């Protein structure tokens, strides 16, 4: 049983019935009077000069109101490198890159107009892989790179948009003393987010030129800032509102089509809805970073891990976006959740003529953890040790420091591994079991919350945090209700809207429960203090004698009848004394980076991002030796969440993350045929369906995080991360072959089995 009233209960999600009845409004379900429809023309070339664009025929088509080209967006943008444009200008850099946009009376007319736009290209040689991009005299993806604004202005080789290194201890000397050293190259593929709702936005300008943009996004504030930046307008002229979001997973973190919808609306002076087709979404949007990782790990004969080195090359695609941070985070995590004193971690991000790589649930972690957790098993095999036992021997614990020197205030990794070991069944014939751990962070940057007590004593909570489906609005409302001692149905969660909501960086980085939850706790606590101030005057007692009572009342402790309802307090505040009761709070995760006495860092090293979270998973598989197919039977997923504010929602994040991890491990791969994506359709790009799913057994571990709301921290990303290495380790367990490339396709399994036989 929980010691709380609302926190710790599996309250149904606030918009569950609205969604299940089909009444929730996603962008494409919205209609505005006089609304036009947008469509986007994509580049057919991976790398080409745009010699000319002739839009006259498109503009002449009756019903077409506006056509935009690169010249309409003179401002470059980008969080780390200002290399990106909304529409290609002078040059295209990947097949699918947006080149022009149209607003017309109907979607069909808009698409017809695209066919009338004549673009004259002069094709250039393209670089389709990091190896090609980094070769001597390779064609440059960005000729003008030196002129771009950059946040981290270190010197970089050609076609590289980020380089970072982290070193602690003396890895070379430590390797020399190791009894066992394993070394290998691991390759991971571009995974597509495949949120079921394609990207979309609806924009409308008012008579004064202020633009309102409804969109499917992870942060209304990032939409507001980027739309303002690319249009050269003050942020105060842009209002961003979140519609219902049909999944995002990192793919709607940066802007998608909002700038296009906004300018089409401004120019046409009509509302414009622009929703991508699934084809366009595949071709224009983003993937997880493909990675090539050389890694080496050393241990002593007694199992102590002592050294790890890694060189990571990420394929960033044509524009840098968040690649610099993805690399920095991958390096921060690459040591793994083990006490390894000597590390040397190096990484770079290459530009290629592929669509952009972006944050995707895990943010660089799945790639490095695939390599790292495979190597732990390789060491266990060499030493004849049980993989869980070896991990327990080396696991970080509360009070240890992470790379960079951040103290782990709470750490449930050991309990995750022990609970996993207890849960595993006796080994069944023909089935292999593999284990992998994950460490991740929950935090990042700033956020805020406002709690308003309405005249009738009910509450409106505004945080600006967009719910992508994980249930952030429900969990934050639970935290608010718990802090104020009111039932959940008295809390109204305000739709994120930059005109009214306080700032929230984003729904990403597994941060909302932990970071926004802290802001909500503080804001609700402030409102509670004001309620107590009033109650003390109304009841003629001291504040310290007061207590919250169930159902929204404040009473004198130990005096049953002496109490006032929130309704009466708030009425007094609104109409007689003091003014409306509003609590507000701003929080920032003030990391502070690396301890220079401990770590040598170059480039964009990012440390102390948030509270660390931990997990451990086991996968049970069978292998068909004829087809090479891996069938995953069960996955046990133990995750430390600090405290489960809503256990059903936590289990939902675990199961959903495992499902995406399963796709990453076995199926999902955006392949390229020369410059073109070869399988950019749901027909050819396989995401797991109901019949592919193994039984998933979630194990929720709770080691309260001292700084978290009621001890809670994040769970959004971690469950995806260990799935692939756990399955690869299970394959090694049951067949003795080690695959170092994802996905673990039947062909690769068969090749490995064949190679092992000869």
């Amino acid at each position, binding site marked *: 049983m929980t010691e709380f009233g609302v926190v710790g209960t599996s309250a149904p999600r606030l918009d*569950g019935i609205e969604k299940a009845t089909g009444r929730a409004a996603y962008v494409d379900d919205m209609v505005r009077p006089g609304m036009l429809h947008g469509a986007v023309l994509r580049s057919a070339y991976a790398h080409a000069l745009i010699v000319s664009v002739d839009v006259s025929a498109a503009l002449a088509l009756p019903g077409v109101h506006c056509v935009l080209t690169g010249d309409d967006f003179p401002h470059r943008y980008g969080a780390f490198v200002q290399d990106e444009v909304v529409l290609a200008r002078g040059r295209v850099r990947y097949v699918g890159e947006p080149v022009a946009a149209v607003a017309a009376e109907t979607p069909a007319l808009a698409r017809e107009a695209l066919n009338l736009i004549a673009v004259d290209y002069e094709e250039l040689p393209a670089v389709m892989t990091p190896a090609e991009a980094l070769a001597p005299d390779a064609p440059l993806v960005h000729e003008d790179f030196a002129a771009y604004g950059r946040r981290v202005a270190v010197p970089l080789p050609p076609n590289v948009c980020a380089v970072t290194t982290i070193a602690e201890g003396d890895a070379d000397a430590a390797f020399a003393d190791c009894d066992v050293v394993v070394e290998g190259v691991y390759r991971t593929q571009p995974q597509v987010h495949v949120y*079921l709702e394609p990207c979309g936005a609806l924009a409308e300008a008012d008579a004064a030129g202020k633009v309102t943009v409804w969109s499917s996004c992870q942060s209304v504030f990032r939409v507001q800032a980027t739309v303002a930046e690319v249009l050269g307008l003050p942020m105060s002229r842009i209002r961003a509102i979140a519609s219902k979001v049909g999944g995002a997973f990192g793919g709607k973190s940066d802007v998608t089509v909002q700038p296009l919808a906004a300018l089409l609306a401004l120019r046409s002076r009509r509302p414009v809805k622009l929703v991508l087709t699934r084809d366009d979404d595949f071709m224009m949007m983003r993937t997880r970073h493909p990675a090539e990782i050389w890694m080496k790990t050393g241990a002593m004969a007694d199992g102590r891990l002592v050294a790890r080195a890694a060189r990571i090359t990420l394929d960033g695609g044509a524009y840098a976006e968040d690649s610099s941070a993805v690399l920095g985070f991958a390096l921060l995590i690459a040591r793994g959740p083990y006490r390894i004193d000597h590390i040397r971690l190096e990484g770079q991000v290459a530009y290629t003529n592929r669509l952009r790589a972006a944050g995707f649930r895990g943010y660089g972690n799945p790639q490095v953890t695939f390599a790292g957790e495979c190597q732990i098993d390789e060491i266990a095999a060499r030493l004849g040790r049980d993989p869980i036992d070896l991990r327990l021997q080396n696991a970080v614990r509360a009070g240890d420091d992470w790379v960079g020197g951040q103290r782990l205030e709470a750490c449930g990794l050991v309990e995750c591994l022990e609970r996993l070991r207890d849960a595993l069944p006796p080994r069944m014939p023909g089935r292999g079991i593999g284990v992998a751990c994950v460490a991740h962070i929950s935090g990042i940057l700033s956020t805020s919350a406002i709690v308003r007590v309405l005249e009738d004593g009910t509450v409106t909570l505004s945080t600006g945090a967009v719910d992508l489906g994980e249930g952030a609005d429900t969990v934050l409302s639970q935290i608010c209700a718990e802090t104020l001692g009111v039932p959940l149905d008295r809390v109204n969660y305000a739709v994120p809207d930059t005109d009214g909501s306080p700032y929230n960086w984003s729904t990403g980085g597994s941060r909302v429960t932990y970071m926004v939850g802290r802001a909500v706790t503080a804001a609700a606590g402030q409102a509670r203090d004001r309620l107590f101030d009033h109650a003390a005057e109304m009841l003629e007692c001291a504040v310290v004698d007061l207590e919250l009572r169930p159902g929204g009342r404040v009473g004198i402790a130990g005096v049953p009848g002496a109490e006032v309802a929130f309704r009466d307090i708030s009425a007094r505040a609104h109409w007689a004394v003091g003014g409306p009761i509003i609590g507000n709070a701003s929080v920032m995760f003030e990391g502070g980076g690396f301890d220079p006495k401990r770590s040598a860092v170059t480039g964009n090293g990012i440390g102390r991002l948030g509270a660390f979270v931990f997990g451990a998973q086991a996968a049970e598989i069978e292998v068909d030796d004829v087809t090479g197919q891996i069938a995953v039977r069960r996955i046990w997923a133990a995750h430390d969440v600090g405290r489960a504010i809503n256990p059903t929602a936590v289990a*939902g994040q675990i199961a959903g993350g495992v499902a995406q991890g399963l796709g990453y491990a076995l199926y999902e791969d955006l392949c390229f045929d020369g410059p073109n994506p070869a399988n950019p359709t749901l027909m050819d790009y396989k995401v797991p369906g109901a019949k592919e799913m193994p039984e998933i057994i979630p194990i929720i571990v709770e080691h309260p995080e001292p700084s978290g709301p009621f001890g809670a921290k994040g769970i959004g990303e971690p469950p995806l991360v260990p799935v692939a290495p756990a399955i690869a380790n299970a394959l090694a367990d049951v067949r003795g072959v080690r695959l170092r490339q994802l996905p673990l396709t039947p062909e690769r399994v068969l090749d490995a089995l064949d190679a092992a036989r000869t």
Partner: protein
Amino acid sequence: MNPTFTVNGRSCSAPADGTATLLDVLRDQLALTGAKRGCNYGVCGTCSVLIDGVLGRACLALAADCAGREIVTVEALDADGTPDPIQQRLVAAGAVQCGFCTPAMVLAARGLLAVNPRPSRAEAAAAISGNICRCSGYGAIVDAIVAAGHD
């Protein structure tokens, strides 16, 4: 005379444009937006509706080909203001996350339960195997369908 069919019990005529799909009619003409346009080529399943009681893809069905058919969309299930038990089960099981697949899952479950009132987990999984969910991992959806079979 354009072909006519019924949607949630009400008569409806297909538009003169013979290329209009059932999904176009539902979403654009009737403002029944519970059926979603996730891929528009028949793979994701988010546009699924019941066509003469059988789960079908509204994005692949030409409206003109629906003459005489009875179409049921998710909007019919709570027409009296009370959500259908399967809708309540999905919410209670935590099977609704982003919600984009959910209306179609509701209809897939309804279609199954109409012919198989007490489905097993495997039967429930098979019934939704043409409907992609990217959030839940499917287990909670299967739980909800099996539970609804016991209601």
